[in-house]
Structure formats: structure tokens, C-alpha cells
């Protein structure tokens, strides 16, 4: 992961995972082709951080347990940078 998404489902899953990690784990993504690999590594690291927090298997991949946890309603993390 993240191998270039082959199917529509995989693309949606990737978007969902990116959005979750941006909202709750301060993932910074840069979709410029030049920064693609760096962004992908950053995403895997953030995914592992999330999996470790929730006691999931730290695979760096959006496995079922991880996606199930991501879908649970939860508390948001406000962007305190602005108000700080």
C-alpha cells in the first residue's frame, strides 16, 4: 500500500483513509507528482501511528479492522494552529 489504486473502490478507500488521517492525525499530503513518494511514506507512517494508538495490528495497510475503526463516529481534532 499505497499501490496506485486500480479500482474505483480502492480509490475511494484511499481517499477515505487520507481524509481520516488528515482530520485526526495531521497528515500533510502533497499530490504534486514530484512529492508523491514522500507523501505516500508519510501516509503509511500516520496509518501506523493510528493503528498503534487503537491497539490494531500495525501493518501500514488499511485492513478491515483499521477501516472499521476509522468508520466509528468520534471526536474531532480542531485546528488549534489558527487560534494559537
Amino acid at each position, binding site marked *: 500500500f499505497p499501490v496506485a489504486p486500480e479500482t474505483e473502490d480502492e480509490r475511494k478507500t484511499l481517499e477515505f483513509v487520507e481524509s481520516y488521517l488528515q482530520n485526526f492525525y495531521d497528515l500533510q499530503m502533497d499530490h504534486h507528482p514530484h512529492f508523491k513518494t514522500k507523501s505516500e511514506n508519510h501516509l503509511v507512517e500516520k496509518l501506523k501511528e493510528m493503528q498503534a494508538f487503537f*491497539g490494531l495490528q500495525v501493518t501500514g495497510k488499511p485492513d478491515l479492522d483499521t477501516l472499521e475503526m476509522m468508520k466509528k*463516529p*468520534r*471526536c474531532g481534532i*480542531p*485546528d488549534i*494552529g*489558527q*487560534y494559537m
Partner: protein
Amino acid sequence: FTPGNPKWKRNHLTYRILNYTPKMRKADVDEAVQKAISVWSNVIPLTFQKVEDKEADIKISFAYRDHRDNSPFDGPNGQLAHAFQPGEGYGGDVHLDEEEAWTKDGTGYNLFLVIAHELGHSLGLSHSNDPGALMYPAYSYTDPSEFHLPQDDIDGIQAIYGHSNTTVQPTGPTTPQACDPNLTFDAVTTLRGEIIFFKGRYMLRKHPARAETELNFISLFWPKLPSEIQAAYENVERDEVLLFKEDKYWVLRGYDIAPGYPKPIYRLGFPKTVKRVNAVYSDETTGKTYFFVADRYWRYDENKRSMDPGYPRKIVSHFGKIGRVDAAFQKDGYVYFFHGKTQFQFDPHAKRIVGQMESISWFNC
């Protein structure tokens, strides 16, 4: 803890409710906020005063999508709310997503539970990875009338503000760890090939084919069931599980609570002198179910659906020295009795104890 360890420098804080949701009565919102405030004020030396028409330290409001704090909400579900760490201006404020199904009970999202969580952030706590903690990021329902601030949250907030001024320090429930050798159980039952261990508001679920043990809130599966279940058994033939607490019992059919329950245990034939059941197991080969109450046991006939005559009898007379029984279940021809941290394996044919192990022996520790 929140990076930078932000905390309020004053012990007297003010809070204000800026607006209300149309989904709940104003009085219910006020009550939810007040109860959420007291969750924290009960355990730390801070006092909270509600103000109406002036600036407040903690401003609670319902907000919709982009509400100009650079952290827009996302519509129903997903993000339910957020709150800012202690500080001026936005600091301490709680924003609730107006598009959520806010309620005062177990349907939708319970406003009291979410505000209590967010106030933890307003006071300086971040998220906990203890799945039983109030500060765990994912939402889970607990009946507000049964809510007690977990020990993990008490430890966290007292590390920031110190102990409460009360003479008796408050304590809270801890989350069961499957491999804690001191773990004891309230009740155990089989359920369609799995084994369910009840403890407080939790259930540990063990499937014989899976190595790991799953920990869940009872309310995740059965929101209508109370916590602290005291006894439970499965009637395999009827595909039912009966669960007991105090002088009532519920029937699970499949994964649903059967309508019309709870019912009084006296319907099963107990005398009024019995106020609760400690443990129960059912022998599907004989159709007999054994209820344990203090140092005695009753035998119930599942086919006749009545207590057998000549009961109760002393537990020691038939089962030997297993003492008072916390929980029991039958599996593969043996009966397993739980007494504190100890588990006894009983052979009903040889009518004697054939094994003794730790209560947690089922969890592959």
C-alpha cells in the same frame, strides 16, 4: 495529555451555553451540560459557574459545517464534536455538530456523554487509548444513569489539577484486560459456539477458532441490557440466552432482546426470599439447569419449565468444595465454575472436580 500541558490557571471557571439544538428540549440540554460539568468537578478542585450574558471561559455551542474555526464539521456521523484546549478566546470552547442526532438516551448520540468527553479537552486532556475511558476518541454508549468516570480519566485529570477536595477520593471503573491474572467475572455463558464473559459494562468474547479475545461494551450489542450482569446461560435447543441481574431476567433470542423482558425471576419458580442469582449453567444433555444462590443451588427442568422438587440443596453436597460461585457454564461435557481468580472444572458424570486453573485460562495468555 495535550502537548504543552495547557491548563487553566484559575480554579473557578465559568461556562455558557451559546445556543441550543432543536432536536432536544432546552431543559434536557441544560441537564446534559450540568451533568457533564459535574463529571469533572467531582474529581478535581475546580468549580464551574454557569453564566448567561457575558464572556465565559468555556463556551458550548452547536455549529454547522464550516463554522469559522478552520475545522469544519462533516455532517451526520463521522466527527461529532470538538473542543479547544484551555486558553483565552476559543480556548476551552466546545463545538457540537448540529447535524448529529442528539438525544438524552441510547438512540442517536447521547449529548451528555459527548459533552463530558469534550470538556475533558476543554480542561487540557487529549485522547486516551483505553477503550473504556471517557477520553477514548470513538463514541460508545453508556446509560447516563449508570455512568461513572473511569479511573483512567480520573488519573489523567488529577495529574493536571490535583485531587478533589473531598475527604474520600473518588475512584472509577477500570477496563478489563484479558490477561490480568486478577481478572474475575460477573457471569459467563456460551452463545452459538462462542463463550461470553461478562464484567461490569464489558463483555469479553472468545471464539474457539480465534486466538485473540474481543473486548466490547455490552451496550454495543444490547443497548437495553444493564451492566453488571450477574448470571447467564444458553438454552441451545431454544437458541436462547437468559441473563440475570438482581430479581429480573432478560431473554436473548439470536442477537436481540426478546420483547416483554425483563421479567421477575419468580416466574421460574424461585421463592420471594431469593433476591438474585449468583451463577447458572444448563446441561443440554439432561435438560436440567442449575441455579446457584449463596451456598445453595436449585435445579430447573427446561422441558417442564419448572423447578424440580426437593430443592434448594447445599452446593457442597453435590459439587464439592467450590465455595460461592461467581459464574458457571458448561462446555464439551464439563462444567466450569468461577470463584474469584480460580476456575474449577467439574465432571458431572464422575460428580467431582477434575481440574483447577486460573479464571483467565480461556484467553491464551
